[in-house]
């Protein structure tokens, strides 16, 4: 009955759009047969939420169905992810906007009821936001190497937005790779962490690009490096940590990534239909300008490549968390 109603709706409301869609591929017709639910594992208002709502808006035009955003915050995204892993009704129409919390959460939250890799289908990575290694404007360190050499001699402090955030883990990773003395100073979110950095209470931070970009421009903060594999087009003069190479830093590549995942039983044709629709979404002007405003880059990996990336990330953060002593047994 529901199917018939849906078909009727599509036929009457869709009109010409439905016609053109039916020509495109046979597969796209089989899915979606219902509204798509996009689960946001964080509270409304954060980057994940804003991105998800933007994607949902564009996606429903491409899929010609409603895409309903649902916030289920809790325990660094692991509550919502755990629920997705358990399956249940409508699981073939449920997707989730995953982020570093997915891989880091697996490393630091004890007793997770799911496997962060095998229990999911990895549809498409949507965006990557680089982190920037920033120091206050009056800091004596003008380069990463100067900083590392000083950190070998004396203890340095780095601010972060909360235990298990990509900002925190980047700092821990830096400390582990360079074998330096660094103390993590936690804050409740980037907003609260920023004044400590601007005021010089902490020595360094590995903040998300959008948070610090304007302060780098105004000269209140100095960017020493970016954490992505390639230089950011927003800070073309700032080297990547990978480029610096010394002190094992060639292994330092990390970004805050945001991508869509689903339950492992998510139908193959649904994954294909989603990937196709998301490609269209990512080429839209609205999406491009949104990504630019965030100082982010569009994601490039999907499917198996995305899964391999997640596998590596889980292993990497697991190691860093153990090393830093933030892994709970």
């Amino acid at each position, binding site marked *: 009955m529901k199917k018939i109603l849906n078909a009727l709706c599509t036929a009457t409301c869709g009109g010409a759009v439905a016609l053109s869609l039916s020509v495109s591929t046979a597969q796209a017709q089989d899915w979606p047969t219902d509204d798509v639910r996009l689960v946001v594992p964080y*509270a*409304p*208002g*954060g980057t994940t*939420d*804003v991105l998800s*709502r*933007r994607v949902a*808006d564009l996606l429903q035009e491409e899929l010609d169905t409603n895409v309903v955003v*649902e*916030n*289920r*915050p*809790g*325990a*660094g995204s*692991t*509550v919502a992810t*755990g629920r997705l892993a358990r399956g249940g009704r409508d699981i073939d129409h449920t997707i989730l906007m995953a982020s570093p919390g997915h891989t880091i959460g697996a490393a*630091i*939250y*004890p*007793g997770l009821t799911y496997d962060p890799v095998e229990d999911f289908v990895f549809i498409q990575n949507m965006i990557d936001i680089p982190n920037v290694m920033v120091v206050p404007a009056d800091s004596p360190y003008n380069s990463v190497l100067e900083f590392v050499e000083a950190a070998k001699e004396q*203890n340095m*402090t780095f601010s972060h937005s*909360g*235990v*298990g955030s990509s900002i925190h883990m980047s700092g821990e990773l830096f400390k582990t790779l360079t074998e330096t003395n660094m*103390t*993590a*100073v*936690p*804050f*409740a*979110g980037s*907003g*609260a962490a*920023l*004044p*400590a950095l*601007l*005021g010089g*209470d*902490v020595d360094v931070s590995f903040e998300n690009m*959008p948070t610090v*970009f*304007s*302060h780098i*421009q*105004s000269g*209140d903060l100095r960017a020493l490096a970016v954490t992505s594999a390639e230089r950011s087009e927003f800070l073309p003069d700032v080297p990547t940590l990978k480029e610096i190479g010394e002190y094992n830093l060639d292994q330092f590549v990390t970004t805050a990534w945001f991508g869509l995942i689903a339950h492992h039983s998510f139908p193959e044709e649904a994954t294909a239909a989603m990937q196709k629709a998301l490609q269209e979404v990512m080429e839209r002007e*609205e999406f491009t300008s*949104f990504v630019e*405003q*965030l100082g982010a880059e569009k994601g490039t990996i999907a499917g198996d490549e995305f899964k391999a990336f997640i596998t590596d990330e889980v292993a990497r953060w697991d190691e860093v968390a153990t090393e830093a*002593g*933030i892994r*709970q047994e």
Partner: protein
Amino acid sequence: MENITEVLQLFLATENFVAIAVGVVIGVTVGSIPGLTATMAVALALPFTFSMEPVAAILLLVGIYKGGMYGGSITAILIRTPGSPASACTLLDGYPMAQQGEAKKALKMALYASVIADFISNIALIFFAAYLAKIALNFGAPEFFWLICFSLTIIISLASGSMIKGLIAALLGILLSLVGLDSVFGSQRLTFGNYNLMDSISFIPLLIGLFAIPEIIEFYRKKVIPHLRAKASGAGVSFSELKGSLKSIVRGSLIGVIIGAIPGTGATAAAFISYSDAKRRSPHPERFGKGEVEGVAASEAGNNGVAGATLIPLLSLGIPGDVITAIILGAFMVHGLTPGPLLFQENLPLIYALFLGIMLSSVILLFVGNAAIRYFSLIADIPKSILFPIVLMFCVYGAYAVNNDTFDVWLMLAFGVLGYVFNRTGIPAAPFLIGFILGPMFEDNLRRSLLIGSNDLSIFVRGPITWFFIALTLGSILLALYRFITSRQKAKQSASEPGAGA
């Protein structure tokens, strides 16, 4: 001159006026529904602003923010259910007033205090943003630590009646605030392995449970209907009452401005600090908590004073002080504008157009609030046998809506039982809340200071701001001790004089 025409051109667009009005209406409505907070409304409205002009987009969000700040007080006063955390303090006197048939007076006073505080906050934003932003930047972890210490001394003045019971409540609040993940090591504390508790206890289910549920239990236990037909909607605020509370409102607004300008403290703390300040200065502090109109005024002035001031670190430094301003920051960025010092240099006309709009939002809040009161105050006339089942439904809904989770409903009911126990044993709820809100801030800033200073204690006396707050804290404790001793002496004297106090 050119600038002025540009500012007016940006400001005098119909879209702006519609955006402010719609925003305030949404804010007041959403704010008055328990469980739906202004934060949620701002987040949900954000996608709609993508296609709007920047000024209108920001004004819509600011309108929701300000409306929500006031809206929360409506249900706090009428049904003892704070619509938003910041209005928890308002119910301490607002609800007793409603019970005494003065609902309308409480609502009106809340509105006037909100609007006046809002106005003062806006003035501070427009004229003193640069100075206040500088203070905010000098406010590091040690300064914060002492500010919280000072705020904790509030408990002394809020513990009406028994000091021991007040301390029990406060310590219980602190104990429950420890639930969740340790902020430095990420280890679990008091979660008993329960995932739902890892993000600590949700504040809204706690509030709803603590205040609304005990009333309902009490009502059904007694099974007598305290039928108030004394025209529950009652009279409004007289000019002399407003005049009498004006000092508290202005002081509360200034407290709100200072707290708002410092990222990360929040409107709830501001309301409590303002309330206790008013109580301490009042010639009849014993009336607070029993339906004192000045208490409502002070609390609302405190939380609305924050509204304009939180935009100070946002606009001048690009630092969002709370979740709402973080979303507004997002709205700026979507329109290609980056708040911070550069914005003032590059987009000055836009900033001034925004300022005009923000000032206008205070005026619109007055009208929308007045209209809302006319209808909402009728709730006070509904017989409780009909009202309470509906309230209970809203409690369940509100607790669920925060995280879309039934766990929070159970949590809310558990706090309902705790609140009932508090009522029966005379343990005050206000110190419990203060402990719950300030406890984590105290701990985090203490540990942060020690981490930053590499365990060197001298960081706690590193500058004038720390000295200032240390003096305030000590002064506050000494004053309380002095009052305690003199009141005891008085009690002794009156006891030894036969016939006294008859």
